[in-house]
């Protein structure tokens, strides 16, 4: 608490000295910026970034740890755990976070980590599928994506993924809701601008599941999509649906080259 107060005082002093917009332009964000592509980290407050940067303070790490436990726990009629087939996640899962969602040939559709886990649970473990933003699902997704921590985002948008990518792009640019806004109006046209008390980001997905201070827990990218849709007074889709899968692919592609930050911390 004392430390946070000190950081806050520091921010206050900086704000007095230089207008924040100018600070942005001058700041070097290192790996969190690739060309014009900027992680949400670069739009976050200094004290929020500090929480993310410290593995002991980052509350999202509790879900990563829970995920590791679940990874090793047998569940379902087949008597298997994730580990039974996938062994050491640091080896077998190391490129998952940076490459998903992927087009899965065997089911003929795009699949993200959440849906892939549930397919594994029902088909291979003979276990019940998890709810999308349940503690176990968030835990294992966080644990799996954490194995790609720091790797540059590199999703494929050709082959079977091409038509999904196109749908995602259309979604991104389609106005919706009573407020009649598309994703791009905030996250392309106005990234960096303040809307009320918040700085609009580029809406990148490389840190999900992201621990939101507002939620007091991590949430999926699809949960975030639902929140955004509702804010423009539009009917959201359900988590895990084709519409949001397509949008997830497009959003991840926008962040190509940004490092996987799971679990990111945002306000």
């Amino acid at each position, binding site marked *: 608490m004392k430390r946070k107060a000190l950081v806050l005082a520091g921010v206050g002093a900086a704000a007095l000295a230089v207008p924040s917009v100018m600070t942005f332009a001058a700041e070097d964000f290192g790996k969190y910026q690739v060309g014009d592509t900027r992680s949400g980290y670069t739009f976050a407050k200094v004290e929020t970034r500090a929480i993310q940067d410290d593995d002991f303070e980052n509350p999202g790490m509790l879900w990563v740890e829970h995920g590791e436990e679940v990874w090793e726990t047998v569940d379902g009629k087949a008597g298997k755990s994730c580990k039974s087939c996938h062994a050491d996640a640091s080896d077998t899962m190391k490129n998952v976070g940076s490459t998903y969602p992927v087009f899965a040939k065997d089911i003929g559709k795009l699949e993200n980590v959440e849906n892939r886990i549930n397919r594994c649970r029902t088909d291979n473990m003979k276990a019940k599928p998890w709810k999308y933003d349940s503690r176990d699902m968030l835990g294992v997704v966080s644990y799996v994506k954490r194995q790609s921590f720091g790797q540059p985002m590199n999703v494929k948008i050709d082959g079977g993924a091409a038509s999904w990518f196109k749908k995602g792009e259309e979604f991104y640019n389609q106005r919706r809701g009573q407020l009649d806004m598309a994703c791009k109006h905030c996250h392309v046209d106005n990234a960096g601008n303040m809307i009320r008390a918040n700085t609009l980001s580029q809406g990148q997905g490389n840190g999900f599941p992201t621990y939101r201070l507002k939620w007091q827990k991590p949430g999926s990218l699809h949960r975030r999509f639902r929140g955004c849709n509702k804010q423009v*007074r539009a*009917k959201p889709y359900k988590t895990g649906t084709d519409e949001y899968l397509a949008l997830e692919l497009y959003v991840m592609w926008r962040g190509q080259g940004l490092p996987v930050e799971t679990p990111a911390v945002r306000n």
Partner: protein
Amino acid sequence: MNTRRIALGGIALAGLVAFAASATLSGAAEYKVEDEAIKASLTGKAGDAGNGKKVFLNRKKGNCLACHVVASLKDQPFHGQVGPPLDGTASRWKEGELRLRIVNSKIVNKDTIMPAFHRAEGLHRVLKKFKGKTVLSAQEVEDVLAYVMTMKE
């Protein structure tokens, strides 16, 4: 609240009378656009600037400060940077031009982020509780306009 109930009653009544003609369910007043402006009051009445200020500030209504800076309202926190500052706007625009921009900015600026505050149709996937409704009633548009017209250089 009262006006909304009356509007809803109107919608329900119209629904009974002309079930098939969904166009008549529109919650928006009719208006004419000329010279990139809506010159006539939507209600035929003058706006009330005092109420307009309330609607302007209300986060569930105009919520104008979410996107615009207004220096004279510096007692209010968190002015946004998405739209242009509104100080002196009444010296730069005619009343009818501002009315049009509040009603539906997209008529003159296709790609704008600014919501149409008085439009009920042609929208995609509107949440049920807002369906067929405008963000602001016709009189609220006139009231906000009256308040904005006080923002002279």
